[in-house]
């Protein structure tokens, strides 16, 4: 019993679709955007890895590693944006008092 290519592509596609759905569903909530956007990265990572296994070429796994780095960078950038946002909001509230 082998895993067919359409099954692999379908799983990757559904994973990316879940991420896009999450981004659209929670577009008003910045906190919920991060896990949803990371699902898109996870879907691309899945596709890279399975393609790599399919063609027996390790380059896909290298790009999967780069994608994992990107998820970490995305989290750091998002938390920095949160930090700036709350700092500005606190400053504005203190100035208004």
């Amino acid at each position, binding site marked *: 019993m082998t895993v067919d290519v359409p099954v692999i592509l379908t799983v990757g596609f559904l994973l990316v679709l879940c991420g896009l759905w999450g981004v659209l569903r929670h577009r008003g909530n910045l906190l919920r955007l991060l896990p949803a956007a990371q699902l898109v990265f996870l879907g691309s990572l899945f596709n890279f890895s399975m393609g790599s296994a399919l063609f027996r070429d390790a380059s896909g796994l290298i790009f*999967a590693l780069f994608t*994992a780095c990107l998820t970490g960078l995305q989290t*750091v950038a998002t938390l920095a944006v949160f930090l700036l946002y709350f700092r500005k909001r606190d400053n504005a509230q203190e100035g208004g008092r």
Partner: protein
Amino acid sequence: MYAVEFYVFAVLVLGAAFMSVKTSSVFYAVLFHMQAVVAVAGILAGLNAGFVGFAVLSMSVASMLVFLMFVLVVFNARHARKAVWEKQSKAALFCFAAAAAQTAYLFFKPYKAGERAMTDFSLPVLGDILYTGYGSCVLVFAVLILSCAVGASALLVKKKEGG
């Protein structure tokens, strides 16, 4: 890789991803997301790419845990009721137990003769390709990670009064 194993982990990934988007709580969304990452790492381990699976798992789960800590500190910790805390603790415990069970399965599962002999994705092969064929990409990502770390540190430093 066993096809059954792939299908089980694929269903886990898709179910966890769906629930991560569907649930309204950030806490449960992060837990489901971590479950999805663990299942993807399981698929990678089944492909004999355990190193990449571990790298993906450690990077994603660590970043999501930092994010969860941030969310709990900023929003939830002061106002959460005790009953909510107990429920969330049980859910977190269940999630970690599920991840531990999957890891234990991947660690102790029986291998067929010759299955471990596949060296296409072994660490020496990956390292060789990474630092010879994609050296410039490694440099770019190193600069990106370093700049992110420096930027986050600079943001955390408080300005002096009137400075």
